[in-house]
């Protein structure tokens, strides 16, 4: 398996053996070194072998070893010949990020930050097995799965503008709650409105630097303004749904006699009964995740208003955007000069639609889609915008975060004898967390340099940098 460098930000593994298409990697000289030793490229080559894959199996600069698909993987499939893969979407279906910006400046809330962190920690249920305050019947949950964010809005969680500024307006229309198992329903009923554990977080930050003034203006971002960034997904309901369909597809694959390089790539033809059923279930989990983030953002608004004693109007917390990381979607793309319907899998990757794309709301027609890139909890996060080059080369996709560099065990070893809490405080970041080893596992050094990652996507032309955010307080599970 030979890695051929095309230019400063692109590498390729040429088609060979069972590969149906080449593999193309977006990275930088420095970032690519970190993944050369592990299984990332092997996993990408495996994806390139799947039936109906178009153009190339793609990896973004934050790529790392996953299971089945690499994290940071993007693949587009022909709707007739291609497959849909639960492992290619991931367990946490529509794990994603939401950004909101307030009218407040950091100066105005500087002395209240500790209280704000405490109140947010109280209002955002975190950690393993945490349960929400909502009491949902099965009928309610089915409405959540069918309607997504608009359900939350109908119950008073949030504002109409939140929905306009959400990918797909917070609802995938093909969701069919009857495809969701009893187990997934059980897990989903008690976890709506919870953050979870692992790399999920809520972060209060400040806009530190504007890179593109005109686009930042359109996104509502200005230097010094306080932001809220939220990262979570479909919780146990999504995990159970992925698990249910993986188990079913693994059994069926042996009947179909398809030879797969990794069982985690278990998949079904897009138009088959199993493929259609998975897509409808995945859409339910995606809608659940959007509802979850909608409720949590609403809780964050409450916390700000309570601690600062201000009205919703004075807080002015407006949603910038909400994007998915783990999803499969039907989109129009030009492949070899022809416009066609493609099933795009993004596993730890973000949609990055350009200016003028018909799926974008009026506010972003001229700027391209806002893209939210969380970094580690001690450094920075970025807001980017989508470009035509992403549409031409990567099925309108880009990176999704900094990407892990260290395993959780390696991070814990490295944290021995240190206080990560104090290290964060020295950088001006207050942390509140639940799990015993959360801060060690998630410490800044466990992640790649997010600035290097966003420079790689900007350098390759698949996104452009709009603004840089600095963390002030982080709530973790």
């Amino acid at each position, binding site marked *: 398996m030979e890695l051929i460098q095309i230019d400063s930000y692109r590498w390729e593994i040429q088609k060979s053996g069972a590969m149906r298409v080449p593999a193309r990697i977006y990275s930088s000289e420095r970032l690519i070194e970190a993944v050369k030793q592990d299984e990332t490229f092997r996993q990408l080559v495996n994806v390139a072998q799947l039936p109906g894959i178009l153009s190339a199996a793609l990896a973004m600069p934050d790529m790392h070893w996953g*299971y089945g698909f690499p994290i940071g993987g993007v693949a587009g499939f022909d709707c007739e010949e291609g497959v849909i893969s639960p492992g290619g979407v991931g367990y946490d279906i529509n794990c994603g990020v939401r950004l909101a910006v307030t009218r407040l400046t950091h100066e105005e809330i500087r002395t209240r930050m500790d209280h704000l962190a405490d109140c947010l920690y109280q209002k955002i249920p975190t950690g393993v097995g945490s349960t929400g305050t909502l009491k949902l019947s099965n009928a309610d949950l089915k409405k959540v799965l069918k309607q997504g964010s608009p359900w939350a809005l109908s119950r008073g969680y949030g504002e109409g503008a939140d929905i306009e500024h959400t990918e797909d307006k917070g609802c995938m229309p093909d969701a069919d709650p009857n495809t969701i198992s009893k*187990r997934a329903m059980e*897990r989903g009923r008690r976890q709506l409105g919870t953050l979870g554990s692992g790399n999920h977080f809520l972060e209060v930050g400040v806009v530190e630097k504007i890179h593109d003034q005109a686009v930042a203006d359109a996104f509502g971002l200005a230097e010094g303004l306080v932001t809220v960034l939220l990262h979570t997904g479909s919780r146990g309901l999504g995990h159970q749904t992925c698990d249910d369909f993986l188990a079913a597809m693994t059994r069926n694959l042996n009947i179909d006699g398809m030879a797969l390089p990794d069982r985690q790539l278990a998949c079904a033809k897009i138009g088959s009964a199993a493929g259609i059923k998975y897509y409808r279930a995945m859409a339910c989990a995606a809608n659940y995740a959007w509802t979850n983030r909608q409720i949590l953002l609403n809780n964050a608004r409450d916390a700000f208003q309570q601690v600062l004693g201000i009205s919703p109007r004075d807080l002015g917390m407006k949603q910038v955007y909400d994007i998915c990381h783990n999803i499969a979607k039907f989109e129009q793309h030009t492949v070899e000069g022809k416009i066609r319907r493609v099933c795009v899998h993004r596993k730890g990757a973000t949609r990055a639609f350009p200016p003028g794309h018909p799926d974008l709301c009026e506010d972003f027609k001229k700027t391209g889609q806002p893209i939210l890139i969380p970094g580690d909890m001690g450094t920075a996060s970025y807001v980017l915008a989508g470009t035509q080059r992403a549409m031409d080369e990567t099925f309108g996709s880009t990176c999704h975060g900094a990407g892990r560099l260290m395993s959780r065990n390696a991070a814990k070893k490295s944290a021995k004898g240190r206080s990560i809490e104090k290290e964060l405080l020295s950088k001006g970041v207050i942390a509140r967390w639940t799990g015993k080893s959360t801060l060690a596992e998630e410490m800044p050094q466990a992640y790649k340099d997010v600035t290097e990652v966003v420079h790689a996507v900007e350098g390759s032309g698949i996104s452009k940098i709009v603004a840089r955010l600095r963390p002030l307080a982080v709530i973790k599970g």
Partner: protein
Amino acid sequence: MPYELVDHTADMGVTVRAGNLRELFETACQAMFDQIVDRRNLKGRDKTQLRITGIDLSDLMINWLRELLFLWNGHQYLVKQARVVHIEEKALNARIAYDPYNPGIHEVLTDIKAVTYHGIDVREAGAGWQATVIFDV
């Protein structure tokens, strides 16, 4: 220890070794729950039984661990011990001893969210058996 942890960039895994299949499956259960909780603090007074099937030994191992994991993330039961009473290539029966989760007593160490098929490998090794499993955390 009859198992060792496998380093994975985003997740974690275990490689388990045992003299026979029965022990291999029992030890895989221990290895998974050792990551979730300190099993020494469990009493295991509550009991349940599991019947697991699979298309081959690898599938049986994944289905075994995913059913055990569902006891945790579906029912909030922490498994102290599993006794495999019968095992063949495509099926097993087991008795499970567990404690219902009590946040006041049990500290959750790692939240294992799923058992993946990635790199699943159950095979004879030397005079015994070996399995490697990667978990989503």
